[in-house]
């Protein structure tokens, strides 16, 4: 096999990888799925860059044009949309898989933290992108989000960083746009490289143990063929979803007239439900506590050899699952049981 002269891309893997890490159940292909989404996002995002206009009035008009005039515009926009949603969902699943495996011990803790940062960045990119159409849903999500920022440390600074003036206007759109198309994607790419490089540095996906055979296979073709397949499957799946669920475009933002009720998109509407209980207990506290817990607890969940302590591993995993379950519960209530004035329907 071509071991002597390996090209740049061939260095993603070591020449030989553990056969066990090639089993589908080892990773469920989630990392590769994420990368596939990212490629799709960059491609469709680049296309949208040609037509999107970052201004208060222009944003929505350009979205109308993209959606209703440009050939395949609606489809391209939908694919961008769906890939973003799938990206966020895969981030969560990838996170669960890592927590279940306890793959954060010893030298791998560094990569775990990089992974958590990537998750944060992914969410930031998702949220900023969600605002860019400047339709009703985006406008009110932005209004609420900016006020929510004030509750966090350095909140006023962050608020004005996004707002860029006294009220939501073109400077706000330009800033969100800049963050969505330049700042966050750049950081995402840099950190993703670091993430993959650290996987190699930490000796692949498995910590060697005596229990398992340490059979190795050449990465070329065994790993690459699987990854290429996964990539194709992910892309086809997203294209199919995009075909059946075209992205919606709400009415143009009307700064003085919030729709009643105004509901965020389904992936974020759980947050809205939580905020309807209390900003502090439903917004600030959960975000701060979860961030601190999931960044630092894995550090102390391992013994001195970097192996996760069973009971703590279960605790960490079940906490993640419970948090997600509560969020899904809130999402269901918000989507199906909330009517005008956010009143319960039943």
């Amino acid at each position, binding site marked *: 096999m071509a071991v002597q002269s390996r090209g740049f891309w061939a260095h993603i893997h070591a020449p030989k990888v553990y056969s066990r890490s090639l089993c589908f159940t080892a990773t469920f292909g989630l990392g590769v799925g994420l990368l596939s989404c990212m490629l799709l996002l960059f491609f469709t995002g680049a296309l949208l860059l040609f037509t999107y206009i970052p201004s208060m009035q222009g944003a929505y008009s350009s979205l109308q044009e993209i959606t209703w005039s440009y050939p395949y515009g609606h489809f391209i926009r939908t694919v961008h949309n769906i890939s973003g949603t799938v990206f966020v969902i895969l981030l969560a699943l990838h996170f669960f898989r890592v927590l279940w495996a306890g793959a954060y011990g010893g030298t791998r803790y560094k990569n775990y933290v990089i992974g958590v940062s990537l998750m944060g960045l992914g969410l930031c990119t998702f949220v900023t992108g969600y605002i860019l159409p400047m339709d009703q849903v985006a406008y009110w999500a932005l209004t609420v989000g*900016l006020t929510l920022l004030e509750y966090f440390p350095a909140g006023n600074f962050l608020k004005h960083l996004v707002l860029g*003036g006294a009220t939501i206007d073109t400077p706000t759109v330009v800033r969100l746009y800049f963050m969505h198309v330049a700042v966050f994607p750049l950081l995402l790419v840099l950190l993703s490289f670091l993430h993959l490089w650290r996987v190699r540095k930490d000796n692949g996906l498995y910590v060697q143990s005596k229990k398992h055979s340490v059979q190795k296979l050449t990465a070329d073709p065994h790993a690459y063929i699987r990854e290429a397949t996964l990539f194709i499957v992910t892309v086809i799946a997203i294209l199919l979803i995009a075909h059946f669920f075209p992205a919606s475009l709400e009415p143009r933002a009307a700064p003085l007239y919030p729709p009643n009720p105004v509901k965020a998109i389904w992936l974020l509407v759980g947050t*809205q439900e939580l905020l309807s209980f209390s900003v502090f207990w439903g917004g600030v506290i959960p975000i701060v506590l979860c961030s601190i817990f999931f960044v630092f607890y894995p550090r102390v969940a391992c013994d001195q050899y970097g192996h996760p302590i069973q009971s703590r591993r279960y605790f960490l995993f079940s906490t993640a699952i419970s948090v997600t379950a509560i969020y899904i519960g809130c999402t269901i209530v918000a989507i199906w049981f909330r009517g005008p004035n956010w009143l319960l329907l039943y």
Partner: protein
Amino acid sequence: MCNTKESRRKFLKKAVQVAGVATGLGLTGTVAGQYIAFPNTIVPVLKKSVGMLAEIPQGISTYRNFQVAIIRNNDHVTAKSLVCTHLGCIVSASTKGFTCPCHGSRFDMQGNVVSGPAPKALVSLPVEVSAQGEVFVDIGTMLS
């Protein structure tokens, strides 16, 4: 054995490096931060006329472009900001009071919280009635 001289030198070197980087980042951060987070507020005309007192109906009437509600009780007028004290949506008025479509806060006729997540009453705004009977609302406090 630990060579104290060696380790002290290492420590000092490290300390100087860290201090240098921290100062550099701190200074750049302060300058850049102030630049990009400047609120750049253009101070607008703060007193808005909502018309003649005689023409303002009894009860609540809303002036959405100014984001205010005027509450008239015989010849007594008060003004409330329509910006929800929860997370900033615009509340809508009814005969019973105000409701917010974003997370369901409810306020009574005086703008006090009846239910929902809003932490405090709708903001009262200063009202002035001129000698000619024209009503002005000062919306300045809403923009701070």
